[in-house]
């Protein structure tokens, strides 16, 4: 009986405990149900969003870059389809064998093979690896024909920037290239592997406008990032069109003309509005080579070239203006009250303190008027003017004519140049200004530095009497309001003063005694007025002068003088201004003036501005 009771106790205890345990388990299940409710009802929106984030990956679609045209509508930069071969390692399976097979069709160097294999090993198996870019059409079709024996290989198309005019346009249009590390701004577009941005020229200046805005596509991806399918697609907006004021035909001519020299620049611009029609800097580079990616070897040879093909010397090259500066001194003197009647006797030198300042003509010019002084480029006459008006008045006039500061052209990297003043010298060199330095400055030597574009601007302002600013883009305000065009204002220099200077320049080319008479234009109605200049690269020592100055031709190229020439045409009613600098070309009259003549003749023959004023001149020329 005891055993029976024992058994009973055990059963009772068991039952109690079992019910208790059941309660605990029921509570645990309730907790599970509550947790499900919390996750799937209370927080479901949050997790639904996270799941979508997981699932959908946005992909940027690069917009086509805006094309660039010249003033006549010729394409200077366009987008051409490009083909590249890619291989998906996952589908190819044996990469080495596939590369062997591709190598039979398109040549692959050992280096390329290595690069492809490393790429393939580093990326996920389903990510395409580029085998070769910029395939020719023939290579594309040969790959397509052999497609069955090339698993995983496919052709992708893209757009590549193309510069049909090549070198003559290189410094103006610039080029695009892959984005470098320090150019990343956080804009995801820049992180697309095939994306290119403008690196120089207007490609760089108007990069943002040319870029356009990206489209996007939403693709479903799995956990390892493989694309499953595209969900939606929105194309981007293509970049803005850009039209330049450059006349491509004239530019081509200018570049060809400059190529007779080792290193030379020329600027042609409209004197009324400042439209730059040609901006030649020789030698140049092939912008397409940059777009495709330069080899280190190509890069080294370009950047080490003493002729500096990568530098746009029209805006970045600075040269002492030499005698082309004399017009500035003439205007400053007139403003100070020294009129055309002011005469100076030139014995071949001027003495100042215990220094002797020479004229280029050893035995002197004799007695000269201002017009004659410009015509014959007499140094002593301008020493005299400068001594009378002082450096600061000259510098002020130089600034008004556009020298000594950036012209504001829509190109990156323009240099200021330098027009020295007393204040400048004290501030930068900590020395006071010497009277002799005024004399040196008056003939455009010494500290004075100007860019060829500044010289062209100076000439255009002399010719029109307006404060024209150079511009290279016809629709700049569309692209960047900062570059909006303004109607040029009058310079505020009396017309009579300008006429006197223009008369002197007319005499330079069209009078038998003028320094550039041999480079005159003798077609009626196209005559040019100009001014020669020679910019010393080295200082002529007293000893050298005593022994007789060494002729330029006998010096090594790098030590020869720069030859300069500025001109406008036609003389009667100026339309075009031109500045030419031939680096180490010797004298301005011999090296630079003929180039300016040829360019201005070609310019007037083409008359790129004829559309603007009804093409009257062009008609006139055709009739005559």
């Amino acid at each position, binding site marked *: 009986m005891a055993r029976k009771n024992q058994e009973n106790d055990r059963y009772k205890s068991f039952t109690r405990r*079992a019910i208790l345990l059941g309660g605990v388990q029921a509570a645990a299940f309730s907790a599970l149900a509550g947790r499900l409710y919390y*996750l799937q009802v209370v927080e*479901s929106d949050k997790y639904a969003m996270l799941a979508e984030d997981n699932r959908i990956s946005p992909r940027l679609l690069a917009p086509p870059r805006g094309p660039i045209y010249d003033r006549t509508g010729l394409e200077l930069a366009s987008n051409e389809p490009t083909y590249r071969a890619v291989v998906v390692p996952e589908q190819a399976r044996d990469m080495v064998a596939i590369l062997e097979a591709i190598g039979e069709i398109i040549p692959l160097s050992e280096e390329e093979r290595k690069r492809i294999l490393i790429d393939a090993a580093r990326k996920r198996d389903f990510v395409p690896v580029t085998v070769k870019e910029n395939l020719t059409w023939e290579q594309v079709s040969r790959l397509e024909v052999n497609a069955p024996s090339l698993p995983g290989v496919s052709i992708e198309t893209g757009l590549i920037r193309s510069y049909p005019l090549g070198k003559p346009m290189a410094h103006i249009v610039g080029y695009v290239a892959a984005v470098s590390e320090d150019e990343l701004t956080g804009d995801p577009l820049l992180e697309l592997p095939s994306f290119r941005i403008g690196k120089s020229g207007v490609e760089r200046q108007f990069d943002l406008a040319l870029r356009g805005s990206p489209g996007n596509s939403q693709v479903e991806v799995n956990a390892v990032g493989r694309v499953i399918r595209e969900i939606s697609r929105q194309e981007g907006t293509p970049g803005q069109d850009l039209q330049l004021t450059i006349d491509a035909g004239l530019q081509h001519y200018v570049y060809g003309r400059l190529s007779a020299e080792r290193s030379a620049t020329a600027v042609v611009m409209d004197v009324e509005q400042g439209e730059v029609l040609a901006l030649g800097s020789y030698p140049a580079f092939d912008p397409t080579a940059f777009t495709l990616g330069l080899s280190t070897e190509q890069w080294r040879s370009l950047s080490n070239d003493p002729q500096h093909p990568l530098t746009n010397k029209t805006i970045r090259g600075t040269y002492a203006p030499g005698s082309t500066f004399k017009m500035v001194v003439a205007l400053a003197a007139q403003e100070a009250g020294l009129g055309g009647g002011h005469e100076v006797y030139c014995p071949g030198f001027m003495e100042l303190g215990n220094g002797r300042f020479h004229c280029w003509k050893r035995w002197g010019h004799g007695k000269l008027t201002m017009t004659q002084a410009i015509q014959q480029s007499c140094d002593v006459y301008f020493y005299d003017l400068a001594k009378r008006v002082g450096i600061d008045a000259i510098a002020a006039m130089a600034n008004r004519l556009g020298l000594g500061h950036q012209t504001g052209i829509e190109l990156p990297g323009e240099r200021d140049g330098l027009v020295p003043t007393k204040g400048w010298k004290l501030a930068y060199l900590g020395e006071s200004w010497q009277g002799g330095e005024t004399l040196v400055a008056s003939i455009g030597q010494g500290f004075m530095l100007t860019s060829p574009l500044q010289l062209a601007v100076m000439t255009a302002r002399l010719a029109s009497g307006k404060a024209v600013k150079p511009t290279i883009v016809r629709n700049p305000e569309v692209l960047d309001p900062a570059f909006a065009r303004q109607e040029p204002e009058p310079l505020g220099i009396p017309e009579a003063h300008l006429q006197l200077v223009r008369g002197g320049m007319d005499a330079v080319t069209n009078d038998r005694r003028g320094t550039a008479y041999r480079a005159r234009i003798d077609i009626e109605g196209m005559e040019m007025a100009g001014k020669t200049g020679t910019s010393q690269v080295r200082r002529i020592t007293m000893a050298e002068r005593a022994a007789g100055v060494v002729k330029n031709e006998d010096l090594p190229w790098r030590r020869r003088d720069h030859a300069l020439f500025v001109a406008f045409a036609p003389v009667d009613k100026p339309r075009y201004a031109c500045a030419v600098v031939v680096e180490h070309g010797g004298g301005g009259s011999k090296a630079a003036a003929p180039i300016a003549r040829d360019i201005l003749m070609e310019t007037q023959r083409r008359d790129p501005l004829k559309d603007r004023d009804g093409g009257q001149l062009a008609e006139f020329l055709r009739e005559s």
Partner: protein
Amino acid sequence: MSLNFDALRPNPRLSLGQKLWQINWGLIFLLLCLVGIGAAMLYSAANGSFEPWATRHVMRFGIAFAIMLAVALIDIRRWYSLCYLAYFAVLAMLVGVEFFGQVGMGAQRWIDLKVIQLQPSELMKVALVMALARYFHGRSLEEVRGFTRLLPPLALILLPVGLVLKQPDLGTALTLLAIGGVMFFVVGVRLWKFALVIAGGLAAIPIGWQFLHDYQQKRVLTFLNPENDPLGAGYHITQSKIALGSGGVFGKGFMQGSQSHLNFLPEKQTDFIFTMLAEEFGMVGGLFLLLIYAGIIVYGFAIALRSRNHFGRVLAMGVSANLFFYVFINTAMVMGLIPVVGVPLPMISYGGTAMVAVMGSIGLLLSVYVHRDIRIPRQGPGASD
């Protein structure tokens, strides 16, 4: 009108037909539901393919079902006498894992028998229940309330726990401890003893922490703060919660779970299959599945309370506790309530040993019910009452 003498006999002999009639077909219906759901989820996990998981899952169920029926029909007294043998056989296998075990995911858990890969730690969950049931059958309440009589069953628990910890498999070791604890509880061990052990256990945590492997420490830390390591160890649980939460009330639809089908969800065919179900069928689907499990566990309780022998009662409670821990640990883990430990979801997760172990234990449960009226003397079936 003839008298039914069988009913008066203390230990009636049942024919095979009578036994089959006694089997709880409702419980079997619930099992069939589970396997059907499991097969459907495995079909979905393979992106709409019966290969490689769904077909084999159903085939294994067929084999396991036969094993279950056989276990159910064998006399409970036969099982009583086989308990220790089963226990020590599985214990031997656990020792064998130490020497011949296959290394997988940083732990030695499997024995490769060529045909099947056996995971003895899953079998141990059942074997431990059997051994403890037999031991406590022979102990009176007074003995259980004492101290010395609790030492042998404690050893029965700690031996396999030690071996499993060495694999290392913290999740299974804790499950074995929990099952043992539940059985100690139902047989009437004094509550203050539990309190003492739990207090001791808590005090030992700082010491035990140092014995944990780096990855186990990391799991616990990650559990405490999953955002700390969103791409590493916390990735699984974060993605599981995203999948569950984004399923909402009614789910994304069969085979429409983006988290599972785009592979954001790891181990979706095994430990995280509940997540996939709740993503595709929502809270409704998740609760439905929990209800089925609850139904099976309730069957276990009912069978335990109905048994007229203590061995059967304790055995049934142990089996249902085992099932409870499987379901609770797995689902609480994928919901981010407890740290990630490798425990499958019975009948749903893909995996052979667990399927056989669970079906075998349900076979024992059925056997307890079929032989519910058989009395077994405390000294064993051979002894006279």
